[in-house]
């Protein structure tokens, strides 16, 4: 709007309802026309005053700031999320068969490692000589036979 198309009071009030009392928030094209109306219209000035009053009333209802506890929790989120991510990867259902298989293989390995094997008694296998009492015993037996 401009001098050839002046803003009416109704249009100005509608502008205040849509865009608020701060002229910076008004469409650039409407600012000059609004200024011209405000320059000579007491009703327009009152409308603007009411719009400013409404915004100041709304300012009486501010939100609280974040608590220190919340800020502390948010600050530690990266570490908490890393642990969460690791857990989510490990605990995902797709990994469960693999974890079960690994556990089974581990059990088999440990079980096998605990069993006695031939190598536990030496590479030469069972030594009947030593079981029988050793070379001295055999010598006694041989002498008796003679």
């Amino acid at each position, binding site marked *: 709007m401009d001098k050839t198309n002046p803003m009416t009071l109704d249009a100005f009030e509608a502008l205040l*309802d849509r865009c608020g009392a701060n002229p910076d928030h008004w469409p650039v094209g409407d600012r000059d026309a609004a200024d011209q109306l405000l320059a000579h219209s007491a009703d327009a000035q009152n409308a603007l005053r009411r719009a400013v009053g409404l915004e100041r*009333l709304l300012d009486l209802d501010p*939100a609280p700031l*974040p608590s220190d506890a919340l800020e502390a929790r*948010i600050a530690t*989120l990266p570490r908490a999320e890393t642990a969460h991510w690791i857990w989510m990867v490990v605990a995902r259902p797709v990994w469960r068969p693999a974890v079960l298989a690994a556990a089974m293989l581990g059990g088999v390995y440990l079980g096998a490692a605990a069993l006695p094997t031939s190598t536990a008694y030496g590479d030469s296998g069972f030594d009947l000589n030593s079981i029988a009492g050793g070379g001295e015993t055999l010598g006694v037996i041989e002498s008796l036979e003679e």
Partner: protein
Amino acid sequence: MAPTVAASRAAWMSAGEGTRRSRVDDVSGLTDDALIARISDGDQLAWGEITRRHLGALVGYAWHMLRDRAEAEDVAQETMVRLMRKADTWEPGGAKVKTWLFRVAINQCIDRQRARRTTSLDVLAEQTDPDTGGATVARDHALRRTVGGAVDDLPTRQKQALTLVHYQGFSQKEAADTLDISVEAVESLLARARRTLKAQLRDLAGDLLEEW
């Protein structure tokens, strides 16, 4: 000669406070997209900066929608958790971080509002103004309850638009993007909200409405 990791670490450790502050300042000058890229690399400074920029606004928005500080902080925390999980797959140049964050917060608030449709204004007063005593404080207290009640009674969509634009300082374009509607639709919501509030507050606090 290329600097070794040990040499870099020694230089960092021996650097003065000013040097360290300048690194922090470097982070504060980054765009949200750049911060998200750093967060996905585990940069704690970037995480601190994105928190500084948005946490208060998220708590503020959620509090105006829910009128419950504990719930508002839960919403803000969950929103930040989702941002952290999103960081790895964030595509710079797409949706603005601020828009994305508020969309998440808005949806959470809607879910919580559905779970409980009404909130006592007594709770509002207790949670926002622990300081009582004196005629002026009592008058402000009563005014705050009146204004809070009038805002609370607005239809949800109007309250969303008013909260984003008036309390969080969003432009109408930003509010339109966040609410996924046109700028004209945002202006229409705001106009209806302001007309309703003026009518309600004229009866309840008319002297103040005219005073300024």
